[in-house]
């Protein structure tokens, strides 16, 4: 398991400042879908409880119904767990030297990339729509001049504050390495 206090390829005097993950509303979305898919059949069974009991008593149809029900429950549960893993394994780590982007796409596709603060040219925060505005989450884009031109922090909380923090860190890093613009 990754110990977040120990960054990979840690530089001297590098320390962790931000660990970002998608907003909790993403988890709520998974829970909501799970709840709906559980409630609908439960309500149907409740409405047709007499018929359901009759079918369960059947020595042939009863086992079929039980097998179907358990396949459905286990399938839903596995879906929820995979979605949680996808949510949890996406993270963005900001230190005083670099930004790490860790993205999980499904179970068998993982992208890890990093960029040094000195490469950052522009940081943009974006909040779209009433839900993102009310719950204060959105995207932050970190632009560089490299081949992979942009990191995108997706649906993170407090995007404006994160943007400001990264800009401050970029400015400090450039001052530290003597790369700041002189006017």
């Amino acid at each position, binding site marked *: *398991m990754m*110990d977040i206090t120990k960054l990979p390829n840690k530089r001297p005097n590098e320390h962790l400042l931000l660990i970002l993950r998608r907003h909790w509303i993403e988890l709520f979305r998974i829970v909501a879908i799970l709840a709906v898919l559980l409630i609908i059949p439960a309500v149907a069974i409740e409405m047709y409880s007499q018929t359901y009991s009759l079918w369960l008593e059947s020595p042939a149809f009863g086992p079929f119904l039980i*097998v179907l029900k*358990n396949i459905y429950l286990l399938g839903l549960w596995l879906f929820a767990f995979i979605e949680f893993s996808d949510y949890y*394994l996406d993270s963005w780590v900001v230190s005083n030297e670099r930004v790490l982007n860790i993205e999980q796409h499904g179970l068998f596709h*993982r992208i890890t990339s990093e960029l040094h603060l000195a490469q950052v040219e522009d940081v943009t925060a974006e909040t779209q729509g009433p839900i993102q505005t009310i719950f204060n989450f959105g995207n932050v884009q970190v632009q560089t001049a490299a081949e992979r031109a942009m990191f995108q922090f997706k649906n993170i909380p407090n995007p404006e504050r994160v943007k400001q923090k990264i800009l401050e860190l970029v400015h400090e890093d450039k001052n530290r390495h003597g790369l700041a613009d002189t006017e």
Partner: protein
Amino acid sequence: MISFPVWLLLIPFGIFVLFFILYSIINFFHLLRFGVRSKKLYIVMVVFLFATIWICSDAITELSNYNWDMIIRLGGSYDFKSSGLFDL
């Protein structure tokens, strides 16, 4: 007329359970290998395990109530048409 033993229904169920176990193990592996160490993660993994055990034990209890040696004859003894099946 088609006839088959009821226990044949357990085969697709067994295949699905194997698939479930495999995917769960892969998921656990990913979380343990790449996940950030935290209490929240451990809690979620424990909840997942316990809920899985609960669903499976419930399934075993329900399935044990039936006679799996029985033969189903489609179109014969187990005709599922009956009046009032969908009466509330």
